[in-house]
């Protein structure tokens, strides 16, 4: 589910805006560290820290979008890849400098620790909480995208940018907002993921592969696809590690590659 939250943000920026954003993991990492600092040294409650993180990272990402990303909307994929890898490297370096290279973790509030008795077996409260957040996000995104005016405008701008512009939609503003939302989601995912995956500066690059896999397997710009891919890959990853411990992460890549070979545009992607 953590995979889903970060990946859906990436799916928003990459799928809707058609921008290959390899710095997405960096936004997730930034979110993680912000949550860490807020809850740790500043004593902000966990839920408030998550909200503040979402808003802050979204706001900061607007700065990047306006100054750097916007210049390259019409550039080649290669340029986009290079620019965003560059940003990711810089982010890793900056966070290594300030937080040190060692993994960090946070102390969760007491109401999120412990187990819930689910009848046949018990579940850690925190995982249930993350899943609940994920479900809320799916609902909100689906509603915003499919049922609201802004959602309709975004879909119009994605399908035909020129046409959308000529009927008076401010595409630039719309894309800025979309990008902010995507980065905010990444940050939220990063904050939620600390407890499950730990957090260190190489996070931005190590987990990037996972996010890219999920987005590509799910299909660009499809929430349904991203969710399906996150669940499938998550299940295979856990099952794979459980059944063949040594083979480790191999299974998840093999599954992803097989799906992509069969369906190059992803499970729910448009050809």
């Amino acid at each position: 589910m953590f995979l889903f939250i970060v990946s859906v943000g990436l799916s928003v920026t990459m799928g809707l805006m058609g921008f290959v954003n390899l710095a997405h993991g960096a936004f997730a990492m930034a979110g993680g560290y912000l949550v860490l600092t807020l809850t740790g040294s500043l004593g902000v409650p966990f839920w408030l820290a998550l909200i503040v993180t979402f808003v802050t990272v979204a706001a900061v990402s607007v700065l990047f979008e306006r100054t750097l990303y916007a210049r390259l909307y019409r550039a080649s994929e290669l340029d986009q890849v290079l620019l965003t890898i560059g940003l990711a490297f810089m982010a890793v370096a900056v966070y290594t400098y300030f937080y040190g290279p060692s993994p960090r973790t946070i102390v969760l509030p007491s109401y999120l620790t412990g187990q819930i008795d689910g009848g046949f077996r018990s579940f850690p409260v925190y995982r249930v909480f993350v899943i609940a957040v994920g479900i809320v996000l799916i609902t909100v995104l689906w509603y915003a995208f499919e049922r609201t005016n802004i959602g309709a405008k975004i879909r119009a701008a994605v399908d035909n940018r020129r046409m959308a512009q000529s009927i008076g939609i401010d595409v630039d503003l719309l894309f800025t907002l979309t990008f902010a939302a995507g980065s905010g989601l990444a940050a939220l995912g990063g904050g939620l993921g600390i407890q499950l995956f730990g957090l260190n500066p190489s996070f931005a690059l190590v987990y990037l592969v996972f996010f890219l896999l999920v987005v590509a397997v799910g299909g660009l710009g499809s929430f349904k696809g991203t969710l399906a891919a996150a669940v499938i890959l998550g299940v295979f990853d856990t099952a794979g590690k459980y059944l063949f411990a040594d083979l480790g992460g191999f299974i998840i890549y093999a599954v992803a590659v097989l799906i992509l070979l069969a369906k190059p545009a992803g499970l729910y992607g448009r050809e």
Partner: protein
Amino acid sequence: MAASSPSEAAQMSPAATDPPVTHAQAIAYLAGRHRFRTIEVLPWVLAIAAYFVFPDRMTFGSQVLVMVLFALSLDLILGYAGIITLGHAAFFGIGAYTVGLLASRLSWSEPISGLVAAAAVAALAGFASGALLLRYRGLTLLVLTLATTTMLQELGNFYKDFTGGYDGIPGLEFAPLFGRFDYDLYGHTIYLYTLGVLFVLFLMVRRIVYSPFGQALAGIRENVARMHAIGSPVHGRLLAAYTISAAIAGVAGALFTETNAVVTLGVFDFDTYSAAVMVMLILGGAGRLYGAFAGAVIYMVLQDYLSKLSPAFWQFGVGLLLVVTVLFARNGLLDLFERIGARMRQWVRR
């Protein structure tokens, strides 16, 4: 790929020199493009000069040359054929492990035949993976190449007993070069050896690039639809280029193992190799042969210097270099120098 307008695609000239103007000039340009120019001696003179100027830094020098070769192999597919891959380290790693395993498990330590074996294995891997992967483009291709490389790394770790896992195979020993020249502590032999291999392979790549085959690759890069329309076997050509490039990357990996006398699974790392080699190429300028030289040298020297201060500085520096290159020197530093040179000449003439 970027939507290129018909007018852009019409002038399929490589970025090297100013576009031809008249018909006669165009013919002269096309006919003389492949000839050696005097300036092309420069990198080789510098490489040999480095041998005499920094005699105690030759191990580092060989590592630089290895990366030049690796970047050159990437140039063939990225710069000329326009294939964007995030997994070129796969072939580098395959080459590195071929030599490492041959030397440690089969005591096949003759260096030059090791290179040939590495090239063959990497070419085979390139052919097999290319046949599958090159049908895809864009994000799918990026993810597939990235995932395949990571899979290789995981596999290498799975067969720990055989590959040594993340600790790698240390303390490899190689037989003297040509059975005569042994390796010294300062890496003098290995430097000249690497330089020789680089020179031979460079001539080969140069020949390929200026051949009709090389032109067809550039055509595919500029406008795939048009190449399909004129009946060019696009997939076959891409596959051939990919296989050749994989073989060269394999040789680079093999040289890397022979230089360092150790090989670890780190050779498959995304940020240390796949991304780094791309940075080098872009920094120097893709699609212009010598970009690989300039980029790899600048990158390696900066890395050597900055990482001594702090690894974080270095990583920040790489990131910054990339961002600045993409925004301001899109065709690499060599192109930037050329343009500055042209501007200066104009200015002097006035």
